[in-house]
């Protein structure tokens, strides 16, 4: 019989102990700010870099043995006839002669032979060169000359090829079919996506792609936060039991309270600290998303209210389940590193839905979603993601079944955990064998 007063005393003591630690305060309030600042800085640096790469004028070589881009057709011009910006780029690269085709920020320099183009690529005068062979029309092959040891992912190269493709389409069809046909072949379809609700209401969005991205990111972030808070709280549990062992207070504790009471008190106290941490993080994420939405008013951000409402329930159940297992197995370790090694398996099992996140985001209510919702290790994270992406697809009975399985598993894990916890606390010194653990566990009422 668990005595509430003792559980309360343990829970209050553990809660106060954790929330007074600098590490907890920093991770709860400082980590989200640091994360946002860091990711903002990184995105900004990379964005500026890519923008600079894309917006600047790039020069590529072209060798035309197919006769599609003849020099006399007025396509190519000498540097003197190009825009000032293009001329500046050519001056920088030392290209004072030759003929160029200006394609809105892309300059194609004409080379007579593949060998000339290869030399220019080798000297890094042009970013790359494309060779249209004589049998291009028959085979459609184009050879790209790329400098050996050049960038693995070239933004410039990825921008030139679509432009070159459109140029070839235009040259192939020009004069043979009407201009509007040429345009449609160049750009055959622009998709305007609209979403249809369960009541057949059509919901149009100007920026569907971005909206989808935000709607996918929010559940993902919530899931990651849930998992992070869950695992960090469990880590505190392991830490507290190792501290008890290292501080040699275990015997005094066990002479004052039952292992069940200690285990439950620790779970509740540290769980409350974890829940508080998760609440702070979730609030920051939602506030951040809402602020971003108000700044970028063209997006209609759907706040996943259902997920937020159920998040505390799934956090508590998931935490109690995984926490009790971690506490039990962690107590068998004789030092902090050993205890952490022994609990890593539970952490990996709870990370499982994260590994299948793409499947869950794509098909939240598919087979994987249903199966993972019923496995106690993966249920909390899976349910939060599903309720974020498509709450209408998660039925009430499924939530009830998932929570019931979690509650039953938690009850079992606390029962088992209390036995191992007691054995683990007392069999200090060298790590006991599995046989000895089981023998001692059997002696416990």
């Amino acid at each position, binding site marked *: 019989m668990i005595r509430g007063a003792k559980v309360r005393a343990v829970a209050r003591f553990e809660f*106060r*102990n954790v929330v007074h630690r600098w590490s907890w305060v920093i991770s709860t309030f400082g980590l989200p700010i640091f994360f946002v600042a860091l990711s903002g800085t990184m995105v900004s640096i990379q964005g500026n870099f890519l923008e600079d790469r894309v917006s600047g004028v790039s020069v590529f070589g072209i060798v035309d043995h197919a006769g599609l881009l003849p020099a006399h057709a007025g396509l190519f011009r000498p540097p003197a006839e190009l825009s000032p910006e293009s001329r500046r780029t050519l001056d920088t690269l030392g290209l004072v002669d030759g003929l160029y085709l200006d394609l809105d920020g892309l300059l194609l320099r004409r080379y007579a032979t593949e060998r000339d183009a290869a030399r220019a690529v080798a000297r890094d005068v042009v970013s790359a060169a494309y060779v249209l062979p004589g049998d291009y029309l028959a085979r459609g092959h184009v050879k790209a000359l790329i400098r050996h040891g050049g960038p693995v992912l070239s933004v410039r190269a990825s921008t030139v090829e679509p432009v070159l493709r459109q140029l070839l389409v235009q040259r192939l069809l020009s004069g043979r079919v009407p201009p509007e046909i040429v345009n449609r072949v160049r750009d055959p379809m622009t998709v305007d996506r609209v979403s249809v609700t369960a009541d057949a209401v059509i919901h149009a969005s100007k920026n569907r792609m971005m909206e989808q991205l935000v709607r996918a990111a929010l559940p993902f972030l919530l899931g990651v936060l849930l998992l992070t808070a869950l695992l960090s709280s469990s880590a505190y549990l392991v830490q507290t039991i190792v501290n008890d062992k290292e*501080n040699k207070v275990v015997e005094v504790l*066990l*002479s004052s309270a039952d292992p069940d009471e200690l285990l439950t008190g620790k779970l509740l106290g540290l769980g409350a600290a974890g829940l508080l941490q998760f609440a702070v993080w979730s609030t920051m994420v939602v506030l951040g998303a809402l602020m971003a939405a108000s700044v970028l008013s063209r997006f209609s951000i759907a706040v996943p209210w259902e997920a937020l409402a159920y998040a505390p329930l799934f956090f508590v159940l998931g935490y109690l389940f995984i926490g009790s297992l971690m506490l039990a197995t962690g107590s068998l370790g004789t030092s902090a590193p050993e205890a952490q090694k022994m609990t890593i398996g539970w952490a990996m099992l709870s990370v499982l839905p994260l590994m299948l996140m793409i499947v869950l985001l794509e098909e939240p209510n598919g087979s994987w979603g249903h199966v993972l919702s019923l496995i106690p290790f993966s249920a909390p994270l899976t349910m939060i993601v599903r309720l974020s992406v498509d709450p209408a697809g998660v039925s009430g009975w499924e939530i009830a079944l998932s929570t019931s399985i979690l509650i039953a598993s938690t009850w079992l894990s606390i029962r088992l955990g209390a036995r191992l916890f007691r054995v683990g606390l007392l069999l200090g010194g060298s790590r006991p064998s599995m046989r000895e653990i089981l023998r001692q566990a059997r002696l416990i009422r």
Partner: protein
Amino acid sequence: MVALAFDGVEKSFGETRCLHAVSLDIPEGLVTGLLGPNGAGKTTLIRIGMDIIRPDAGSVRLFGSAIAREQLDRIGYLPEERGLYRKVPVIEVLTYFGELKGLTRADARRRGLDWLERVGLPAVAKQRLDALSKGMSQKVQLAVTLMTEPRLAILDEPFSGLDPVNIDLVKGLIQARREAGLTTVLSTHMMDQVEILCDRVAMVHDGHLVLDGDLEEVRQRYSVPELVLRGDGELPAIEGTRVVATKGDKTTLELLDGLPPAEALSRLVNAGARVRSVDPHRASMEEIFLRVVREAA
């Protein structure tokens, strides 16, 4: 009334058998010394008595009935391997352990402050334990153990790490408990303290109970028939005695063939011995300890 009774208690860890059918009664209201060499099984016996571990066989009764968790609130336990939360203020630690022993938070705090006064540490209430000396931490731990005025206190090596002044303070606390009719089990290797404080002694060796009884009765039992005499000049040789040792004016005389001490003294005086004082030999607990261990070995 028996406070704590062990009946045929056995315990093994792996292949090691720590206790062999130990039966021992700890009477209520007295101070009982639980003695034994290192690794004898004392701590295991105490842990079983505290219901921290369960025996493989045998039973334990606390205040006349089988151990129930509620009863443990009436026991204070100072383990040999001790420690407290080092980064928590002293008063918070006292309050926490008081609550775990069934006190309300307010009562636990009040009693904690009282006990800090009693152990001479009123100024450290708000300090963290890691800021205190070893001796001060030891006294805080003792306050944690005794702050609920437990009906039974089990003190495992309560004097270790203490200076003579603080040893005296702890002795005073144990004596005050006896005067209040509370039971104390004292496990220590300081045999002089056992002689001063204990009413009864029990000794465990290699997991067996090898000694149990009233302190005076045990000392009597292990005392040899000897007289320690102080006098002037050399003692005359008399029939039925043998000089065992002489040091300065002190002579230890063995009484042979059941010669009564009074008769031996009379013979000495009649033979012209100038005796200033005479004491019958009483075995010290240290002698008894060593003798029992050697005999058991």
